[in-house]
């Protein structure tokens, strides 16, 4: 240690992601996605004990704590040839599954819904009609008194001027299409989801030792042995059931109700050709029999096996010393010295550009569900077909902003349902006297390995090289880098950049449509959007959370 990296300015308040788009004739002509914050955690890890790596990596992102820790322990286990006990696999699956339930609900209601739902329009809704609408569409209808109460609460919010999270939206924008009653119903569920997310987070506390930063993960398994009492498992099951009911009765019906007004978005926000998925939720071992299978789609609908050797990171357009595109196992993190210059014609991001077989690849719910669907995963196939059927759209609508948002809902159902099996298996193991959650091991002098996961935001890989029992090299390639990374040496754009091109923009001062697509990728960072009008040379700088 002792190495200090000072990158100035770190514009934390401005947000870590900057999206710039050029608009011509009412459509996005070009787009640039820039990571505005340097993450040098990898350099900080060199020379440390591999057993400590997960404590650091889980702090590298404010939102994705557990999953970085999981990839990290998997990487060390792979480097040290450790096979974790069955109960550890089940508990890790349950913790990861709980993360999916929590994150996707928060994303849909609290990070994405207001791109589609106009809160101010909800204030003119008729509570009686809203109750009728909810009876016809929602698995949990509300009474007119209930919706009246919600309306009053919303008015208080709006009139107080303390809008908080409702502050940054573009109320009254022409791209909002929901009738007032649908806006009120969705707003009511926005508030219900706040309560639910508070509960869902507790699932992690049960097997995680504590939440928000689970401490139960260790290289070799988990340390929640003390939690394996029937009471604790029942407590987990109760929250899981309540969460699952919310997903199936409220989230999915809301998704379908909202989507039915935005079918045009089934043709906007796609534009990618490669979809990559490492797969996750092992049925046995580490990477066998995955609930979401691994695979890559490269321009057609025939999934191929993922060849990890095809992964490289290109730094041509990122603020790193020039060098060849490298595989993460031998990757380097060498930031250029001095001030960085944001120049969309040259270097413009702190994110490297990950590539699969030289191409940019979308990761995340859409990639996962496309790979699962084309691999014949039955649960996914049935749900996808069902959703497409209910919306009356074809499979091509999946390759879009709408498809990405729907895929997230679909996998919340699939993973939520699978959790039941893991709980049952865990219970029967314990009942039969198998309480083993940790496999003792010894640190080798040398080792190389990787940990792959498919986490709520997409494919996550950690690569580690151990020498003398210490970390010699550590690299990770995160979902947001795959999706939000910049262009590369061949001028091939990243997935979000591709997706934004062609997006209709009604009013460059209020780039709501840009937000829809960017948010559909679930970037885990605050986002500052810049829109340039080349004719007037006017730049609209809009800060969005």
């Amino acid at each position, binding site marked *: 240690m002792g190495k*200090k990296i000072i990158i100035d300015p770190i514009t934390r308040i401005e947000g870590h992601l900057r999206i710039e788009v050029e608009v011509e004739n009412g459509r996005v002509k070009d787009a640039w996605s820039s990571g505005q914050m340097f993450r040098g*955690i990898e*350099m900080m890890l060199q020379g440390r004990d591999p057993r400590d790596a997960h404590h650091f990596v889980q*702090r590298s992102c*404010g939102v994705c704590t557990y999953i970085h820790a999981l990839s990290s322990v998997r990487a060390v286990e792979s480097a040290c040839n450790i096979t974790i006990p069955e109960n550890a696999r089940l508990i890790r699956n349950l913790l990861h599954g709980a993360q999916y339930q929590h994150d996707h609900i928060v994303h849909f209601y609290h990070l994405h819904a207001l791109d589609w739902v106009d809160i101010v329009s909800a204030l003119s809704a008729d509570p009686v009609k809203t109750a009728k609408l909810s009876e016809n569409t929602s698995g949990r209808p509300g009474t007119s008194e209930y919706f009246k109460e919600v309306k009053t609460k919303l008015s208080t919010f709006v009139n107080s001027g303390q809008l908080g999270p409702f502050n940054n939206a573009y109320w009254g924008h022409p791209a909002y299409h929901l009738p007032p009653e649908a806006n009120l119903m969705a707003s009511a569920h926005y508030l219900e989801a706040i309560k639910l997310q508070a509960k869902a987070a507790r699932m992690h506390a049960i097997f995680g030792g504590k939440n928000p930063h689970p401490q139960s993960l260790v290289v070799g398994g988990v340390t929640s042995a003390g939690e394996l009492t029937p009471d604790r498992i029942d407590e987990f099951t109760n929250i899981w059931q309540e969460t699952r009911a919310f997903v199936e*009765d409220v989230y999915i019906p809301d998704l379908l109700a909202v989507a039915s007004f935005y079918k045009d978005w089934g043709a906007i926000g796609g534009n990618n050709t490669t979809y990559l998925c490492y797969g996750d939720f092992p049925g046995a071992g580490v990477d066998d029999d995955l609930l979401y299978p691994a695979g890559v789609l490269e321009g057609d609908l025939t999934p191929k096996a993922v060849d990890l050797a095809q992964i490289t990171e290109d730094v041509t357009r990122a603020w790193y010393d020039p060098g060849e595109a490298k595989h993460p196992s031998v990757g380097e993190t060498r930031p250029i010295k001095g001030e960085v210059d944001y120049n969309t014609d040259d270097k413009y991001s702190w994110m490297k550009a990950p590539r699969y077989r030289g191409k940019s690849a979308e990761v995340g719910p859409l990639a996962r569900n496309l790979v699962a669907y084309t691999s014949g995963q039955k*649960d996914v196939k049935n749900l996808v077909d069902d959703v497409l059927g209910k919306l009356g759209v074809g499979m091509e609508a999946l390759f879009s902003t709408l498809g990405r948002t729907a895929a997230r809902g679909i996998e919340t159902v699939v993973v939520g349902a*699978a959790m039941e*099996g893991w709980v049952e298996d865990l219970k029967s193991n314990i009942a039969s006297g198998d309480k083993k959650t940790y496999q003792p091991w010894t640190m080798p002098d040398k080792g190389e390995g990787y940990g792959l996961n498919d986490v709520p935001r997409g494919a996550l890989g950690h690569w580690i090289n151990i020498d003398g029992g210490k970390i010699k090299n550590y690299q990770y390639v995160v979902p947001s880098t795959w999706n939000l990374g910049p262009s590369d040496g061949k001028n091939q754009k990243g997935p979000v950049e591709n997706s934004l091109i062609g997006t209709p923009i009604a009013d460059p001062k209020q780039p709501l449509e840009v937000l829809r697509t960017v948010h559909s990728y679930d970037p885990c960072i605050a986002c500052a959007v810049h829109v340039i009008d080349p004719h007037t040379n006017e730049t609209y700088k809009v800060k969005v959370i």
Partner: protein
Amino acid sequence: MHAASGRYCRKPLPGKGMTENTKTPDNITVLGVGNILYKDDGVGIRVVQHLEAAYDVSDNVIIVDGGVLGINLLGVISTAGKLLVVDTVLNHGRPGDIHCLAHHQIPDRILAKNSLHQVDMIEALTLCKALDHVPETTIIGIEPRDLNTLDDRLTPEIADRFDDLVQRVVREIHTLGGTCRLKAQNSVPPRQDHSL
């Protein structure tokens, strides 16, 4: 695996009214926030880690390492009876100055802070209004020297004041109605050097 298809059709849920109130337990939640990878930004986390390791607290005290989870801390905040946030605070003072902000002073002070997780904290507190429960909040903060350098150690100025900060938090826990006492001597782990 268990079939998921068709599970999301309409289906009334017995006994789960939409308007049920979230019960608010009468607890004191001590919430450390910040990022331990950025020097003094991690001081709030160091304090709660130290409390957990070296102190016994009464049953009504919950200690939470909040990291930089921002709005995802809503669950923690909305179920807090009284909320005690431990963090860095920029208050035009010298590094190492310890500030205590009572609830009515909070919004303006926090907004002055150049840190992302604080903006999110405000959002989370605002959202609590939608849950009809805003916990009585106190912030104990220390004026930082360096929040931006990627390094998991506190600066010397802040490390020197660490014990004072811990004592201030312990006192506040007692004021709020909890107890927080040093563990018996033989069970105290060796004093940490404020790195992992």
